[in-house]
């Protein structure tokens, strides 16, 4: 397994940070105005975006090998299925 040590420049990191702040601002603003159910969707999509950025750059996942990425995907899908399958009960009771 190649052990590449990719170094991110301070500039790039700061850039990511700025994007993250803007996204946070966006979340706040869309949830202030009334969008009904869409709020949830919007806020969560943005949250996922932010999470994605942090994982990809701050946590260097973008530069890791396929194994690590695969495993992360596995963990996330597991959590998703736990939640999803519980709703087979909750929604149809």
């Amino acid at each position, binding site marked *: 397994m190649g052990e590449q040590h990719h170094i991110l420049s301070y500039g790039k990191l700061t850039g990511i940070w700025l994007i993250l702040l803007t996204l946070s601002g966006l979340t706040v603003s869309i949830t202030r105005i009334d969008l009904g159910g869409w709020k949830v969707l919007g806020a969560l999509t943005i949250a996922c975006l932010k999470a994605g950025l942090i994982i990809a750059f701050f946590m260097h996942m973008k530069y890791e090998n396929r*194994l690590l990425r695969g495993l992360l995907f*596995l*963990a996330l899908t*597991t959590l998703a*299925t*736990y939640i999803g*399958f*519980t709703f*087979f*009960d*909750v*929604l*149809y*009771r």
Partner: protein
Amino acid sequence: MDLAEQSHTPVKGGFWSDTGKTGITAWIFSTDHKRIGLLYLYSTFTFFLVGVVLGLIMRIELMAPGRTIMGPDAYNALFTVHGVVMIFLFILPGLPGAFGNLVMPIQIGAQDVAFPRLNLFSWWLYISGAVIILTSLFTGGGPPDTGWTFYLPFSARTATNVTLAVLGVFIIGFSAILTGLNFITTIHRLRAEGMTWGRLPLFVWSLYATAWVQILATPILAITLVLIMAERVLGVGLFDPARGGDPLMYQHLFWIYSHPAVYIMILPAMGVISDIIPVFSRKPIFGYKMIAFSSLAIAAAGSLVWGHHMFTSGMSDRAILVFSFLTFIVAIPSAIKVFNWVSTLYKGSISLEAPMLFALTFILLFSIGGLTGLILGAAATNIHVHDTHFVVGHFHYVMFGGSGFAFFAAMHYWLPKFYGRRYAEKPAIVAWALMFIGFNITFLSMKVLGMKGMPRRYYDYLPEFATLNLISTIGSWILAVGLVIMLVNLFRGLFYGERIGSNPWGGATLEWSIPTPPPTENFAEEPVVTHGPYDFRALKGGGSGGEKF
């Protein structure tokens, strides 16, 4: 106590002495996977005996209707402690902790696990958790009486010492997580040259699958236990209907972990069997790929069936539909394993030494347990037998007839390698026979009782159930006698029995290619693996890398 015995083990050499360190600290602070493995063996084993005794006492109480030797509260505490000890202190850490640690690194040609210090830490967590659980029995409101499932709201109301016990289980869960990540990293990173994934012994494959379950399921148990404590200490009321909580959500959370947990118990056992059967039939395992794959399949599908413990709870019918369906799906990989094991025997040259006997018994008992699992998995039939002794019968067949007998097989198969001496064959067979008979008498009668409608966790029962309960109790004594004979013979043999060479059974996996007992670093020089784990012809031709034998 056990450790003391070891220090005057007649066999010198290997990891017992080559570090020069002796005395208790050389054990409880050692980072050598073999020593840690033995620590796990002796600790889980001790707790196992505790659980066994509790089980036998329970049987005595159930011998006759009404009060036999104790009152209801004592009995309720008994089955709770019995369940908690057996599951969290014995069978979950047992096989991975003891034999995973002992042989897995050697089988993949490694010096040790990836994080030896973390490995030691896991054991310490395990022991601390165990100690906390034991203290919970004698302090506060006395031993917990909730059943090992800790169902709310009852476990929030009872005055017994649930909080402490739950804390102990929490810590043990943490230990399991660390062991899991240690094993996964080890298997990914420390395989010797030539040890391709296609050449991993099936025991390693099963540990790999197990480790994933430990990592992905145990955190859910952790948070569930935290919520129980919060419920009791802070009264958060998250599962309290009066305050909008939903008791069924607790059950979901609990089983999201605890069903996969049953595969943590059985997968390593299946691995042991897959390693033993080829050796004693001198024939490569049949369908290596399918067995390896089915381990992963069980781990994956097994995380999606937890709802089958809640069919009567008032869960939605659609959920019952889905979970019942998936429960049947998860049976298929197990079936595949069984069929492949049996086919391995075909045209082999079978010798029925103790490890093989226990392995074959595993197949039979696990099949009985598993097939009754199907009866439980079908919605219609589950309703009748849920929460009856039928379920008790089911899980004793799989846990004890399955994992338990696999543990015995592993003890007879691998321990001589680490002690340099072996048990005597005849007494082992006698013990096996007694246990086999006693086991079926004890737990088959429980299945019948269940079908006749005797609920579980019943301290007292109606006269119509008396006969079968009496039979079951008598069976448990036969079983216990068998167990005692087996253990005496086994450990007598390990300490004073006849000496063995490096490869008594003619196995082809790496652990048999190194001296007996193995040296601390396992391999003199890094082995180069040139053949598969069950390639016995290669063995005759001189064997794998490492020393000759």
